[in-house]
């Protein structure tokens, strides 16, 4: 196993820059996910590591050895592809044996390794079958087996779950995570599915437009997004983003249309210190908005547009002026469309971003990650009664 270090990696196609100065260190044994929308350069980056594409400039090193000019087979990597890429005319056994055969290993050695890998992945009854006689989930395991059998320094996985149905995806996700642990492998994983990225990774690199916008643990990118792109990409439903102007007169707030969204003084000060504004984007996640039928301090009036119960949480879509806001409430809260509601953001969990650069405006002292989330303020419970002290450890169970 080894660490993977990308330094100022650039890949261009003519005038199109697919990967733009990406620098990234994947520690030995770490599970790192490159996540981003289509066309963000994540798969290109993975193919550069694999050696399937030639690097335009920069260096890639695996285990301290620069591998820019090495053939894929000499990089000591294994790759799992989105469509599995199993050899259709070869049996499962031959598929697993192929990389070992190419390495010139002895027949009985190959047999031993293939059987061991098949055993660990639960596919040993399938060894005589052809890939087309397997289900999608079984093909996926064979593809994993073909990677495992080589015992590579680094596993590269290109959206390996996207062809599976929802149920199987959840199951395989856990299995890959377990496999990573058991093999103590270094894994670079590519996905467009932020849920996969969040659930599986030690660290996540959020990519967009060929660059890495933020590289950190799943909770870091979730709780302290570095910029607007990360904020709007990570989280489902997406963070509510409101474009407005910073108001410094009196109590700090962000004016969006005719409503004033409350802002903690620390962020207002930070904005001033950073010379940001007055155009800003105000970000708040659905969980961090308290919903009430009565007006609360520092709340904004809205009208319920639609209510979506999911079972364990109910999403409330509301219109505030011309903006659409998503908040969430407990499933037992009964709200109806066209009802008047007041939305109060948890002041400790608000994000603001510079309206021009999109970069997060942040004070260094408080990280929103440590703050608890707000919950529904029912009519019976006044907003003031809610525990909002930043020091109180979270009880929502998500962290």
């Amino acid at each position, binding site marked *: 196993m080894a660490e993977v270090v990308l330094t100022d990696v650039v890949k261009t196609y003519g005038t199109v820059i697919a990967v733009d100065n990406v620098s990234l260190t994947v520690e030995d044994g770490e599970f790192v996910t490159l996540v981003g929308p289509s066309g963000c350069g994540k798969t290109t980056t993975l193919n550069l590591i694999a050696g399937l594409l030639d690097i335009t400039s920069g260096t890639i090193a695996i285990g301290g050895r620069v591998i820019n000019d090495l053939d894929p*087979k000499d990089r000591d990597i294994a790759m799992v592809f989105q469509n599995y890429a199993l050899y259709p005319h070869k049996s499962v056994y031959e598929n697993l044996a192929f*990389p070992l055969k190419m390495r010139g290993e002895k027949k009985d050695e190959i047999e031993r390794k293939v059987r061991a890998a098949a055993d660990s992945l639960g596919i040993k009854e399938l060894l005589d079958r052809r890939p087309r006689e397997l289900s*999608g989930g079984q093909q996926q395991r064979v593809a994993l087996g073909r990677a495992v059998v080589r015992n590579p320094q680094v596993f590269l996985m290109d959206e390996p779950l996207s062809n599976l149905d929802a149920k199987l995806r959840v199951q395989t996700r856990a299995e890959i995570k377990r496999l990573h642990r058991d093999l103590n492998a270094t894994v670079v994983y590519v996905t467009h599915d932020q849920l996969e990225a969040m659930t599986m990774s030690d660290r996540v690199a959020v990519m967009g437009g060929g660059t890495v916008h933020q590289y950190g643990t799943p909770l870091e990118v979730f709780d302290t997004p570095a910029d607007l792109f990360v904020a709007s990409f990570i989280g489902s439903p997406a963070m509510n983003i409101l474009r407005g102007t910073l108001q410094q007169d009196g109590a700090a707030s962000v004016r969006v249309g005719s409503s004033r969204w409350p802002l903690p003084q620390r962020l207002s000060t930070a904005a001033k210190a950073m010379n940001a504004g007055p155009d800003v984007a105000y970000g708040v996640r659905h969980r961090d908005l308290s919903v009430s039928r009565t007006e609360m301090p520092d709340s904004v009036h809205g009208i319920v547009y639609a209510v979506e119960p999911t079972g364990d949480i109910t999403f409330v879509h509301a219109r505030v002026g011309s903006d659409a806001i998503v908040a969430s409430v407990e499933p037992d809260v009964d709200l109806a469309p066209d009802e008047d509601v007041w939305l109060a953001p948890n002041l400790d969990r608000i994000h603001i971003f510079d309206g021009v650069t999109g970069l997060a405006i942040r004070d260094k002292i408080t990280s929103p990650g440590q703050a608890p989330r707000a919950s529904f303020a029912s009519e019976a419970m006044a907003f003031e009664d809610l525990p909002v002290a930043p020091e109180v450890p979270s009880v929502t169970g998500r962290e």
Partner: protein
Amino acid sequence: MATATRTLRKPDAPRAVGSANVFKEMWNRRGDYMYVLPALIVMGIVIFYPLIQVIWLSVHFTSPYGGPQRFVGLDNYKEAVQDEHFPIVIKNTIIWTSVSTVLALVLGLAAAILLARPIRFRGFFRSVLFIPYVIGQVTAAFVWKWIFHADFGVISGLLVQMGIIDKPIKFIDSTSLVLPSLIVVNVWKEFPFAMIMLLAGLQAIPEQLYNAAKIDGAGRWRRFTDVTVPQLMPVITVASILLIIANVNAFTIVWVLTGGGPAYRSQIFITHVYSQAFVGSPHFELASALGVMVFFALMIFAVFYVRLLTRQSRSNRVIQDEGEGGLMVIGSEPGNIG
């Protein structure tokens, strides 16, 4: 009243059709059959009538000058097979068909592989290489007749001028060179067909298979033998069958260039059938017997072809994931973070 009942009739409920019910069902749906009737009539006139006529002729003695016709059983077949030229015709046909087919496939595959790469002017090269296929058979044959000409032919002329040979080569007038020369023309004419089919096949091979093979350590040659060839095999099989059928039936090139000569050295089955019927004293009954033989021989390939196509469409079935047990599944997929 009758019309009223008809228009008010309920749509037919789906029902099982037993063999006894087939004709009733056909009668019930007689309107539908009217739509395909014109096509059936045309096919009957141009395909089935001549076919039946040839089979009938092959078992009768007839004279082209009229006179009585009588049933002779398989006598015509016996006579056709016992013809002194029959062995060389069979030999020529086998050589012609097998060598042409193999060379057209090899050349077509080579051209397809070159053209599948992202090279400059690819579209131009594709068009140029496709030209032989679209030139008329007779035109092509006449062009090659001049190219091969013993006195004015361009190949011999160039070779003599360059001093490589001192007298012109008699390509199609030589008993030993005539069949290979004709095969060259035939391959030139039909390799673009193989090329286009194989090119389409090559482009359908998923790039990820090559990527997987590269990572698994397969070099150029192993990627060709372990990915390209097996992936192309269905296309190669279909192309071979179609080429074999076309080559057995290839008449024009041989007929225009040599007429089967010299001394039967380029006579293949189809030209032989034609010669029997229309050259010298006409023997329609022998030609018919030979025609029926080649018809059934080609039917075998046609059956293979059809079976192959149906097998391929059947193997595209989907295999469902049986819930593989194990872990419990928690939550729905587009799950919510935060």
